[in-house]
């Protein structure tokens, strides 16, 4: 594994900066000397497998968990009351007060901030108009996430933390949620997003950091990272179509679940080798490398392992 330098130097001061963050639990080091800087107005993605330390990292950045050592700075200063007033947070898992409607839940949180958006505006922004009088316990998963996003937006935050916001949602609800986040991005908000959905990261994030074992192992824009690490394209074949004899061919072969992937910079030559070896190509799929391939390349793991 190799260390990757921090994000490219920027002229403006980052809205959030993390320096040498360490978090020890008994027998576990969840975060191990992690540093990063989040520029203002970008969507910054923290990617990694379960247990990589990304939720611990984001919770320390949110100011609700204490680090063992290291520091987090918001607009150049340690986290303080100003940060709490200007940060919006959507936790991975949270519950609201029972017996309150959608509107009352939003109103409660609006009352906790000195400034923010009008409750009606937040309801409109998160498409909750038809649900505003419904008990918050009677919402579907996607509706619940929209309400939690509305609560995170109620103070018109400068920086918005979204910790695995679409985990557990069905594909349609997930796409609807992505559209919402894109509309928030359009308002030039700084967003820090953790996810293990690569499609989500590629669609929403301007910059990403891949975290593994509490450390950043790669950081940059998705395009730049892919360019840096891949000149190749990926060939995918069902494992059942790939004979054992073909494993000795001079190719970069990776086993992924029920398929075999071959990474190559010379597509013509690779195809000739496979044809000569009589490998069935009826179900062959060719695609460019993506962030999941990047993660496999860097760590040798599947992201959702």
């Amino acid at each position, binding site marked *: 594994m190799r260390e990757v330098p921090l994000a490219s130097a920027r002229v403006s001061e980052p809205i959030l900066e993390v320096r040498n963050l360490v978090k020890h639990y008994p027998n576990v080091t969840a975060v191990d000397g992690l540093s990063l800087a989040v520029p203002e107005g970008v969507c910054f993605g923290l990617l990694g497998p379960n247990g990589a330390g990304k939720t611990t990292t984001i919770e320390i950045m949110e100011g609700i968990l204490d680090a063992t050592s290291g520091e987090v700075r918001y607009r150049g200063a340690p986290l303080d009351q100003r940060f709490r007033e200007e940060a919006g947070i959507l936790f991975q*898992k*949270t*519950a609201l*007060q029972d*017996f309150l409607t959608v509107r*009352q839940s939003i109103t409660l949180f609006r*009352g*906790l901030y000195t400034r923010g958006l009008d409750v009606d505006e937040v309801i409109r922004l998160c498409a909750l108009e038809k649900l505003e009088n419904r008990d918050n316990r009677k919402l579907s998963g996607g509706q619940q996430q929209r309400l939690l996003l509305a609560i995170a937006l109620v103070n018109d935050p400068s920086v918005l933390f979204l910790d695995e916001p679409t985990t557990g949602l069905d594909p349609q609800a997930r796409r609807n949620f992505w559209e919402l986040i894109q509309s928030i991005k359009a308002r030039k908000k700084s967003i820090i997003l953790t996810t293990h959905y690569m499609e989500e990261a590629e669609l929403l994030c301007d910059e990403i950091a891949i975290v593994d074992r509490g450390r950043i192992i790669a950081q940059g824009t998705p395009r730049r990272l892919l360019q840096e690490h891949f000149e190749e394209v990926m060939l995918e074949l069902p494992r059942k179509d790939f004979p054992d004899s073909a494993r000795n061919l001079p190719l970069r072969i990776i086993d992924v679940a029920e398929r075999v992937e071959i990474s190559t910079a010379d597509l013509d030559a690779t195809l000739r080798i496979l044809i000569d070896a009589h490998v069935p190509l009826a179900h062959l799929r060719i695609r460019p490398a993506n962030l999941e391939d990047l993660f496999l390349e860097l760590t040798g793991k599947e992201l959702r392992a």
Partner: protein
Amino acid sequence: MIKRLAAVWHARNLEFVRDRRTMIFSLLMPIALVLGMSFVFGGKERPLFKVGVIATVIDKQANPFLHERYVEFVPIADQSTGIRKVTHQQIDLLLDLHGTPRYWVNTDSPKGYIVEKLLLGAANGAQRQQVTGEAVRYVDYLFPGILGMNMMFSCLFGVGYVVLRYRKSGFLKRLHATPLTAFEFLTAQVLSRLGLILFVTTVLYVGIGTVIHFHRAGSGLLIILIAVLGALSMVAMGLTVAARFSSEEVVGGILNLLTWPMMLLSGVWYSLEGSPEWVQWVAGIFPLTHVLAAARAVMIDGAGVAEISSHLIYLAATALVFLALGAWSFKWRYD
């Protein structure tokens, strides 16, 4: 700060009012208890005469009257306590055997009339002292105890479990991510619960008072002040218990550990007079003991602020101490 506190207070009130089952239980339980007790104890008098004797230990040889059958003789520490008890017909006659025997009898009491005849038959020459006063029934004694006990359960379990539920569900963690402070959150919970307890207690006080016509000698405002300080002290105690723990078993265990001794030793059901000194010392620690002692002093004896000031000061001080302790040890997260 006030805006944040008001937002949390308002939301908690909405939650309570809409949680109908909890609301109904809070009202029905004490009503059922008081009516049941009124039915059992309100009408029939026990067939035993009770005579107070001013003495630490009663010497049966001191007077032939002390050998009378069907009369229970109880030691009374001092004359004023004894006279008060005769006035409220908590005893049928008070006897002082120091020097020339003297006795106090309530002319409004039929049992006092009979037991006086027994006394004069056995110890002729005793000097008669007369008092008058309406009888205090057991239900009159019990009524403040039931209100106090309901208040205690509502304060401790109502608040303790609510905070625990908030912590376990992650709602507290979400609040922690806002500018809200632990002190603001706890104060909002205290005020919300205080309002509800005062409402419920007032409904019970007025409603049950109409049914059983209980005895009330003192100021209604003073009773409200006792209720406010008592509720503040016990709500703050409940918050202190719930401030740190995440386990229902632990919180439930601690709350039971507090409520059962309070229920048994604070004088809800009977007076602690005559019980061992250490029991009275332990009882003196509990806020409920002070609530009940003050409430009964006002309701039965018509006591004023000065006479119950030590109880009021104790309740106010414990409220502040528990609230400060709760805010200091408060934990937002569920581990």
